[in-house]
C-alpha cells in the first residue's frame, strides 16, 4: 500500500505532463499552418472517414427496422403533399370545363371556382414553402448525432457503442480543443488589431492589419473544424464593391473573412461581441452603427455610399436576407444594398448538413447554445462560390436588380429561389401579393374588357 503512494503521484504527474504537452503540440500543429494559410489536408481525411462510418450506420438502422417490420421515418425533402404545378387560370378553366361541360372558355363565374381556392388554402396549411425553411434541414442518412436521429428505436448494440464513442470523442477531445483554439483566435484578434491600431496609417499598417485579420479568422475556422471549398476565387470582391451572400448563420462571416479582407457592417453589440468590434475597427475601417442609427435608413445608406465611393476602402460584406435561413432556399433580398450603385459581388454559400448543421434557429437557441452545438458537431463542411460581379442595368430598379442577384446565387448554390421575405416569420405578408391573386382571378370572370353580358 505504502509503496503505491509515491508511484501514484508519479503516474499522475507523468499523465498530467504528457497530456499538457500533447495538447500544446496539437494546438501548435493547428495554429502554425493557420498563420501561414497552409493546410495539411487532415480535415479532409477526417471527413472521408466519417462519411464511410455514417453510411454504415444508416444501413444498420435500415436493417434493424426491416427485421422488426416497421416503416422507417423517411425525411421528406420535397414537402409532404403531392403538388401539381398548375397556374390559377389553368386550374379554374379545368374545373369549369369538367364541371359544366360548356364548350366556351368565356370568362364567367361558376360556383365551382371556390374549390380551387379551398384546396389551395388547405394545401398551404398542410405544407407551405416558408415555414419549413426556418427549421433545420432533415438528413437522409444518420450522422451519429442524437439530435438528428428520428429512428432511435432501431439502434443495435454495435451502433450504440459507436454512438457512445462518438460522444466521447466529440465532447471530451474535440470540444476542449476547439474551445482552446477559439479562445486563442479571438484573443489574438483583439490584441493584434489593437496593437496594429497604434501604428501610423500607411502601407505597413494595412499589410499587418490584413494579415492579423486573416490569421485570426483562419484559427477560428479550425476551431470549428470547418472544411471549406472555395470556387472561382478569381471573382473575389475588389475594393469599392459590395459582397452579398446568402445567410445561414453567424459563421458565414468567419468563412468568408478567412479567405478575403472585408469591411464588416453591423450594429454594435454589448459584451464580448462589442469588445471584438471595437478592437477591429482600430485597425481597419469597418462600418459599425449604434442601435439607434440602424433604424434610420438614409443614414445607413449614406455611410455605406461614402464607404464604397472611396476606392481605397475594403469591400463591404452584407447579408441582404436580413435573417438566418436554413440553407435550402434563398429568400427576398432587402433592396437597401442594391440602391447604393456599387458593383455587387455575389457569393453563394452552401453547407453540407451531414457533418453538422450550421443553421442558427434564433427562436430556438441562443448564441451560446448555438456555438456549443457547433463545436460538438463533427465538422462544418461547406462550399463557397464567388460569382462574377454584377452591376445594375439602367432599366432595372433596385428590387429587380436584387432579384437578379438572388437568382444567380440560388442557381449556383442549388437552393430554392423564393420570393417571400425572410422576415415573414415574424410579420404578416403585404397586401400587394393578395391583390395579385385577386387580379388574376378577376380576369377569369370578367376577362380583360368591361362586362358585356346583361342578365
Amino acid at each position, binding site marked *: 500500500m505504502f509503496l503505491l503512494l509515491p508511484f501514484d503521484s508519479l503516474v499522475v504527474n507523468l499523465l498530467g505532463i504528457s497530456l499538457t504537452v500533447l495538447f500544446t503540440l496539437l494546438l501548435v500543429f493547428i495554429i502554425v499552418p493557420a498563420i501561414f494559410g497552409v493546410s495539411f489536408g487532415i480535415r479532409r481525411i477526417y471527413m472521408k472517414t466519417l462519411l464511410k462510418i455514417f453510411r454504415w450506420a444508416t444501413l444498420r438502422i435500415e436493417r434493424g427496422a426491416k427485421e422488426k417490420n416497421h416503416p422507417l421515418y423517411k425525411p421528406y425533402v420535397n414537402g409532404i403533399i403531392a403538388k401539381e404545378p398548375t397556374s390559377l387560370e389553368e386550374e379554374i378553366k379545368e374545373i369549369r370545363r369538367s364541371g359544366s361541360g360548356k364548350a366556351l372558355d368565356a370568362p364567367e363565374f361558376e360556383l365551382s371556382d371556390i374549390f380551387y381556392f379551398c*384546396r389551395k388554402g388547405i394545401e398551404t396549411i398542410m405544407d407551405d414553402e416558408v415555414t419549413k425553411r426556418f427549421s433545420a434541414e432533415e438528413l437522409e442518412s444518420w450522422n451519429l448525432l442524437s439530435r438528428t436521429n428520428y429512428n432511435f428505436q432501431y439502434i443495435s448494440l454495435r451502433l450504440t457503442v459507436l454512438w457512445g464513442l462518438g460522444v466521447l470523442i466529440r465532447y471530451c477531445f474535440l470540444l476542449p480543443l476547439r474551445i482552446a483554439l477559439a479562445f486563442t483566435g479571438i484573443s489574438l484578434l483583439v490584441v493584434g488589431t489593437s496593437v496594429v491600431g497604434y501604428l501610423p496609417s500607411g502601407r505597413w499598417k494595412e499589410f499587418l492589419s490584413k494579415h492579423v485579420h486573416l490569421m485570426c479568422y483562419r484559427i477560428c475556422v479550425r476551431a470549428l473544424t470547418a472544411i471549406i471549398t472555395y470556387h472561382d476565387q478569381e471573382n473575389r470582391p475588389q475594393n469599392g464593391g459590395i459582397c452579398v451572400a446568402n445567410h445561414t448563420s453567424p459563421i458565414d462571416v468567419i468563412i468568408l473573412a478567412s479567405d478575403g479582407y472585408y469591411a464588416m457592417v453591423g450594429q454594435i453589440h454589448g459584451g464580448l461581441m462589442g469588445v471584438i468590434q471595437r478592437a477591429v475597427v482600430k485597425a481597419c475601417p469597418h462600418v459599425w452603427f449604434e442601435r439607434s442609427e440602424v433604424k434610420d435608413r438614409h443614414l445607413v445608406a449614406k455611410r455605406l455610399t461614402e464607404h464604397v465611393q472611396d476606392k481605397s476602402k475594403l469591400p463591404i460584406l452584407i447579408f441582404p436576407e436580413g435573417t438566418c435561413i436554413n440553407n435550402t432556399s434563398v429568400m427576398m433580398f432587402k433592396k437597401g444594398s442594391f440602391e447604393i450603385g456599387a458593383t455587387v459581388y455575389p457569393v453563394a454559400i452552401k453547407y453540407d448538413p451531414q457533418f453538422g448543421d450550421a443553421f442558427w434557429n434564433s427562436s430556438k437557441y441562443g448564441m451560446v447554445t448555438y456555438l456549443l452545438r457547433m463545436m460538438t458537431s463533427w465538422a462544418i463542411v461547406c462550399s463557397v462560390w464567388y460569382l462574377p460581379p454584377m452591376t445594375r442595368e439602367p432599366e432595372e430598379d433596385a428590387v429587380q436588380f436584387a432579384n437578379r442577384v438572388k437568382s444567380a446565387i440560388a442557381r449556383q448554390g442549388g437552393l430554392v429561389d423564393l420570393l417571400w421575405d425572410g422576415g415573414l416569420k415574424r410579420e404578416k405578408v403585404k397586401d400587394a*401579393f393578395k391583390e395579385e391573386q385577386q387580379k388574376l382571378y378577376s380576369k377569369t370572370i370578367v376577362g380583360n374588357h368591361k362586362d358585356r353580358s346583361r342578365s
Partner: protein
Amino acid sequence: MGCQSSHPSAIPELEEIMQETGFSQASVVRLYDRFQALDKEQKGSLSKYDLQGIGELAVNPLGDRIINAFFKEGEELADFRSFIRVLARFRPVEEGKSKETGRPEPMNSRLSKLRFAFQLYDQDSDGKISRDEMLQVLQLMVGIQVTDEQLVCIAERTIQEADQDGDGAISFEEFATSVEKLNIEQRMSLRLLK
C-alpha cells in the same frame, strides 16, 4: 418540420383519431409535426394568428374563411384533434370501397367535401347561400378589380342558374346538383406522400 420527429406515443388520442379520420399512423405523425411547427409558441394549440402567419395562405382571397373553418363558434384556439378533423375531409377517397350501410359517413366522402365548400359560402349557416353571401364571396375573390354593379349582375345570374325551387337562394342540394358533373373527389383531395 423540425429535426426531431414526434414519437407516436406523444400524440394524444392517436387511436381515436386514426379511426375517425381514416389517416394512417404515419400520416397522423406527419400532420402532428406540422401542427407543432405552426404552433410557434409551443402552447399545444393553434390560434388564428398562427395560421394567418402562413404567407401563402394570407394571399388566398378566401384565406380568412378557411382559417375560421378550423375554429368552433366563438373559440380562439384549436387543438390537434380539431385541426386534423378539417384536414381529414381532404383525404383522397379510397377506390373500390363500397358503401357500408350503418357506418357513419366517412369524413372524406364526396358529400363531406361538398359540405365544406358550401360552408365557405354560407357563413350564417342557415343552409342557404343568399344573394348577399354570394356577393361577399365574390368581393373577397376579386377585391377592387371588378365594380360592384358587375358583381351584383354575376351574383344574380349565378343564383338564377342554380336556383331550382325559386326561393332566390341556393340550398345545399341545389349546390350539389350544379356541380354534380365535377370530379369533387379529385379536386378537393390532397395526397400525402408516403
